[in-house]
C-alpha cells in the first residue's frame, strides 16, 4: 500500500536577522530531503551557501557544483570545484528587499554514498535577475544529519526569511 510522504519536518521564519539558518537532528527515515527558502539579506548580490553536518566557515573543500543560468539576455554555465559550500546562485544572488526563491533537493541523504543535490534559483528584480538550475556534489559518505545556510562577513539573512525542510 502506498505511503503518504512529502512531510514538512520543520519550518523557520526569521523574526530577527541571522547570519545562518540551521536544521539539525534531521531524522534518517526519509529517502530524500527538499528545502524551500524564500529570503532576503542585509547586502545585495550575495551567495546562499549550503553546508552540511556542522561544517562552518570556508575551510572545507568537499563541495562542488555546476550551473546553468539565464539573466534575461544571455545564457551561461559555470562550475566550481573543491569549494566549501554549494552555491545555487551564481549570477544575481540574494537581494536586500526582493525575495529570492530557492529549492534544494538532496538525494539519498542518509545513505553511505557521496551526496548529490539538484537546486533551483529564481530571482526577478524588475529589470534584472536570473533563473538558474544547479547540481551539487558533497564528497562525504556520512549521513546528512544537519544542514546550514550560512553567510560570510557581516552579511545576515533578513527578518522574514523563511525556510522549510521536507522529508520525501
Amino acid at each position, binding site marked *: 500500500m502506498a505511503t503518504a510522504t512529502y512531510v514538512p519536518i*520543520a519550518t523557520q521564519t526569521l523574526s530577527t536577522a541571522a547570519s545562518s539558518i540551521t*536544521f539539525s537532528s534531521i531524522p534518517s527515515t526519509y529517502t530524500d530531503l527538499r528545502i524551500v527558502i524564500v529570503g532576503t539579506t542585509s547586502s545585495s548580490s550575495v551567495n546562499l551557501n549550503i553546508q552540511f553536518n556542522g561544517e562552518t566557515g570556508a575551510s572545507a573543500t568537499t563541495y*562542488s557544483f555546476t550551473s546553468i543560468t539565464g539573466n534575461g539576455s544571455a545564457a551561461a554555465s559555470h562550475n566550481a570545484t573543491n569549494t566549501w559550500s554549494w552555491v545555487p546562485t551564481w549570477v544575481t544572488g540574494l537581494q536586500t528587499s526582493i525575495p529570492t526563491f530557492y529549492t534544494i533537493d538532496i538525494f539519498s541523504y542518509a545513505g553511505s554514498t557521496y551526496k548529490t543535490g*539538484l537546486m533551483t534559483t529564481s530571482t526577478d528584480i524588475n529589470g534584472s535577475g536570473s533563473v538558474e538550475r544547479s547540481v551539487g556534489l558533497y564528497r562525504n559518505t556520512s549521513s546528512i544529519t544537519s544542514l546550514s545556510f550560512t553567510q560570510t562577513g557581516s552579511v545576515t539573512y533578513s527578518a522574514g526569511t523563511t525556510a522549510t525542510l521536507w522529508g520525501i
Partner: protein
Amino acid sequence: MSLTPGIIASSLTGHLVTNNFFKIATVTGTGSSGNITFSSIPNTYKSLQIRINAIPSIANITTWLQFNGVYSGNTYAFHNLSANPNNYGITATGAGNANWMAFFEQGVMSNVYPNTAIIDIIDYANTSKYKTAKVFCGVNDNTTNANEAIELTSGLWESTAAISSMSFRVDPYGATFSTSSTFTLYGIS
C-alpha cells in the same frame, strides 16, 4: 557542534502530512542488471514523480526511459538543454520518432558519483492524451571533465495508453546499475 547565531530547528516534532504525495515503490539496483522497471503502476493518481539517485557501471552514457514495455515503433521524442561549462558549454539537442526518451542525453553519467534526476509525468493514466514528461537531472564529479552536467529535458510518448509500467535502462550500453542506486516512484493525487 558549534553554530553561528541563527535559528536551530531541532526537536523535530509536530509533523504535518500533506496526504497527496504517496510513495508507491522503491527499486534498488542489483549490480547485475541495467534495467530498472516499475510494473503494475496503479491508475489512481493524477501524476507520477520518479526520483533517482543512480550509479551505472560504465561512465559517459545516457539513461533511456520507456513505457509499457514499448521498445520499438518510434513513438517517443525528447528535447534536452544541457550545460557542461568546460566541455560543450550549453547545448540543446533532441530526437523525434525515437524508441526512447533520453536523459543525461550528452552522455555525461558518472560511474563513481551519484547521477540524480526528478521526473514528472502528468496525466499518466489518461486514455485520451499523449504523455508528456519533464526531467530535471544532474551530475557533478568535482572536476572539469565530461562527467558533470545540469540538464532539463522534455519528453513525449505518442500513446494514449495509460502508463502501467516504466523502465529506466542503461543496458543498451552494456551497463548495470550499482547496488547503491535507488529509483523511487511516487503518486500525486
